[in-house]
């Protein structure tokens, strides 16, 4: 049990000191996946053969004393990040058999360090959802209670890390898809600043909001992963040329005098009482550590979900139009081109994906564009301005990650509006292109983890990791049945 609770830093030392080989480490995780994943369904594809040869490659490098921080470290990758020669499904029937002929830039970077790919993790179909129950296959469960959802859309990655079926993972976050499942599964997830990590090879949901980021056991582990994947990319014109820092550099430095803002709207009646009080006691803990709490407001929050669904829906409708079954993916039948793609798309997409496509196309239609899409863009500006105002007075912002802890499977899926409103705590961060980290701050009466989010200034990831780490040093994690004795 020592091994699976080890931090990435410890694993690095163990590998470098030959206490364990890369192959043994990978095998340890495969044994656990074999044992527990049939129940949890966090993986869509497990890549054992490939991984063991990856591990042997990594071992050579370790033996040559030439290891990079992630050499020989096994990772799980969300199944919307393209992996050359390994199918990448987006948990959709549409791409069930899609094998990309190229790697995402983040995969190229990880391969450059000789990481070990454990497998591809489940998600809501095309990352649309917050429960991983819209997946066409591998509907992942919560490791703290398999009758509950793991959150989503990166539910597979969060569950895999929470159940120790991977030491760390990559997810993607469009409106909370890294942070909310991290919070539901009791792990740490970081959504980087928009443009910090290349989106090349990430199958697009909403291009102006999507961002790849790490899900891990701690803020420090997130920082180690971010160090590996951050940076400008010639293949992604929206990637930022801002210099890459060592995101773990500030860890351990005093947070005395750090100003933490608490926007009142995030602590309203629509947030569960237990969640609220748990996050507020974490705020008290920060005060005890020397931080200064700042009360503030964010009046645009009530419009945020509407703006988010319009912008993300519009982009998604366009991004998903390419799935016509002509060159790859599920191919329907029909006598004409129109009939054929109608059939491909009817059969290939699930209900939630269809709903978002309809919503997005409606918002962009002539006659409605001004009323919906343009208004959403105006709200985006308002949200950015309110964040700027708060950051004039504070260094980071503290909010709950989700209004509730993990709920029962089947409880919310029938009510899309309720489901969409549950994104209220996370979507503004994507709209404003900011970085945010979710970390566990307690457990509710049902024993389900509660997460809090720290939101930072643009490219302020190092401060977020420092701040999260300061809290995590004193935090007591509850084990789940997969990690316990």
């Amino acid at each position, binding site marked *: 049990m020592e091994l699976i609770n080890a931090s990435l830093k410890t694993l690095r030392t163990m590998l470098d000191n030959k206490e364990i080989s890369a192959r043994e480490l990978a095998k340890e995780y495969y044994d656990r996946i074999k044992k527990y994943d049939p129940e949890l369904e966090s993986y869509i594809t497990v890549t054992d053969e490939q991984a063991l040869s990856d591990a042997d490659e990594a071992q050579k490098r370790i033996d040559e004393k030439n290891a990079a921080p992630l050499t020989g470290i096994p990772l799980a990758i969300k199944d*919307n*990040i*393209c992996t050359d020669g390994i199918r*990448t499904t*987006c948990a959709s029937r549409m*791409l069930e058999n*899609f094998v*990309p*002929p*190229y790697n*995402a830039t983040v995969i190229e970077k990880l391969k450059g360090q000789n990481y070990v790919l454990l497998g591809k993790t489940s998600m809501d179909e095309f990352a649309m959802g917050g429960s991983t129950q819209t997946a066409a296959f591998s509907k992942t469960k919560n490791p703290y209670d398999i009758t509950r959802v793991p959150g989503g859309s990166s539910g597979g990655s969060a569950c895999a890390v929470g159940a120790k079926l991977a030491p760390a993972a990559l997810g993607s976050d469009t409106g909370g898809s890294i942070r909310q499942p991290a919070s539901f599964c009791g792990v740490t997830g970081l959504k980087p600043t928009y443009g910090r990590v290349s*989106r*090349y*090879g*990430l*199958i*697009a949901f*909403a*291009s*102006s909001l999507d961002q790849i980021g790490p899900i891990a056991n701690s803020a420090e582990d997130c920082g180690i992963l971010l160090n590996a994947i951050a940076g400008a990319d*010639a*293949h*992604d*014109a*929206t990637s930022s040329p801002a210099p890459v820092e060592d995101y773990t550099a500030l860890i351990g430095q005093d947070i005395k005098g750090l100003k933490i803002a608490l926007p009142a709207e995030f602590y309203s009646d629509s947030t569960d009482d237990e969640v609220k009080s748990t996050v507020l006691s974490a705020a008290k803990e920060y005060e005890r550590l020397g931080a200064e709490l700042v009360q503030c407001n964010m009046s645009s929050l009530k419009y945020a979900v509407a703006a988010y669904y319009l912008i993300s829906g*519009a*982009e998604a*409708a*366009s991004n998903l*139009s*390419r*799935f*016509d079954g*002509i*060159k*790859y993916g599920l191919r329907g039948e029909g006598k004409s*081109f*129109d009939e054929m*793609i109608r059939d491909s798309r009817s059969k290939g997409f699930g209900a939630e994906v269809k709903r978002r496509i309809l919503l997005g*196309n409606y918002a*962009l*239609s*002539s006659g409605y*564009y001004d009323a919906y*899409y343009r208004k959403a863009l105006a709200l985006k500006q308002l949200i950015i301005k309110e964040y700027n105002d708060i950051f004039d007075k504070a260094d980071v912002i503290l909010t709950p990650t989700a209004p509730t802890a993990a709920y029962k499977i089947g409880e919310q899926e029938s009510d899309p509006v309720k489901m969409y409103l549950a994104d209220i705590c996370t979507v503004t961060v994507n709209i404003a292109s900011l970085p945010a980290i979710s970390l566990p701050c307690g457990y509710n009466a049902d024993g389900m983890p509660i997460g809090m989010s720290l939101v930072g200034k643009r490219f302020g990831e190092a401060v977020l990791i420092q701040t999260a780490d300061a809290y995590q040093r004193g935090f007591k994690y509850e084990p789940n049945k997969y990690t316990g004795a």
Partner: protein
Amino acid sequence: MKLYPTIGLEIHAELLTQSKVFCTCSAQFGGEPNSRCCPVCSGLPGTLPVLNAKAVEYIIKAGYIMNCDISRFTKWDRKNYFYPDLPKAYQISQMPRPVCLGGYVDIESEGETKRMRINRIHLEEDAGKLVHQNRVSLADYNRCGIPLIEIVTEPDFHSAQDVTAFFEKIRLMLQYAGVCDGRLEQGSMRCDVNISLAEKGSDTLGTRTEVKNLNSLKAIQRAVEYEIYRQTELIENGERVIQETLHFNDATGETSSLRSKEDAHDYRYFPDPDIPPIIFTEEELEQIRADIPEMPQQRYDRYVGEYGISPTDASVIINNKAISDLFDNAVKAYNAPKPTASFITVELMRRINLGEANAEELPFAAKELARLIELAETGKISKDNRKVILREMLSSGKAPDDVAEELQLWIKEDNALIEKTVDEILAANPTPVEQYRSGQTKVFGFLMGQCNKALKGSASPAAIKQMLEKKLNS
């Protein structure tokens, strides 16, 4: 009722960049089907477009030569529609903030100079090509992602001649700017024509139709003329013109409906989130503007003004960029602009017009043409023999000196031969000789010609003339 046509154009021109507009695939014409595409231009999931800076430079040049304003802030939008030749199901184009706005081009049409206004020019990507075989359609994505500029004019055109003169003029300008190769047979430029008819002087326009994808001057002219005729017939018979998109059939010379207004797409344009907007600085724009090569009008002025070439010859030369380049390079190699110009416009252009040669693919270099002119100007060969050598150069690609040597076309100034030949000609033409001697000196030219012909260019005209005068006056 006198009906008056009003016409506006949308012209698509492919840019001459090495690579495609959003990826690094070759932008060359042709190639094995689907051999020039990659995950980006074939729209595989997860891939992202990255804008080719050269394409942006080229559209700015196109804007400057057509007197447009260049937007200091420009951005790209997605035009969404499903079609199998469009792998992303959206075309990256520009809607509210095109690179070029406003502008005009002056043309000569129907005996007058007319100013045709440009509404906008924007940068977008080309789609692929569909090939229909039996009951199967095959898609070739080689053309997918080739950079295109779309030039949208104001409705300033009123006849087929206006349209073809404009099209030909901008084709030439784009070629000179090095922005588009203008090769219509390869689809490098395509024209959509919007036509409506109304009573002359009426302030409302009639219902318009749009004829799509015309790719030759002939097709443009015929389509415009046919559409004017068809709409005139309809209106005069009391019927209504339907707003629709039409296809022009080259074989029948008629237009037919592609889709009506009711079937028009809602393209759901919105800003492309993958391509950041561009802000140009004055320095960047100035640098691009300074880099624009000499335009046809400037070359014309240089030919007439500096070289003293006739306006007709200068026009013929500038109207074909390959010919104009050949001329400039030949003059650079051997400085004799006038004889070079007249030889090109008379002899070379005749061969080209007869289909014996292609201006874009001549088998010899400009310096070889220059050498040919030099041989004649320096008296090494006769001027007539330039034609003979040119034909040989065109058919075999041989150098002019080699041809002259092989065919023995050098001027030898062999006085004995000249004398013998002149004697023979005079003996064979007693009547003209009599006429000359009785004062009708204009027959001298005829006798000169006969001698020249018999000597096959081996003697210079001066030498023949001297001998002929001597014999006639003796």
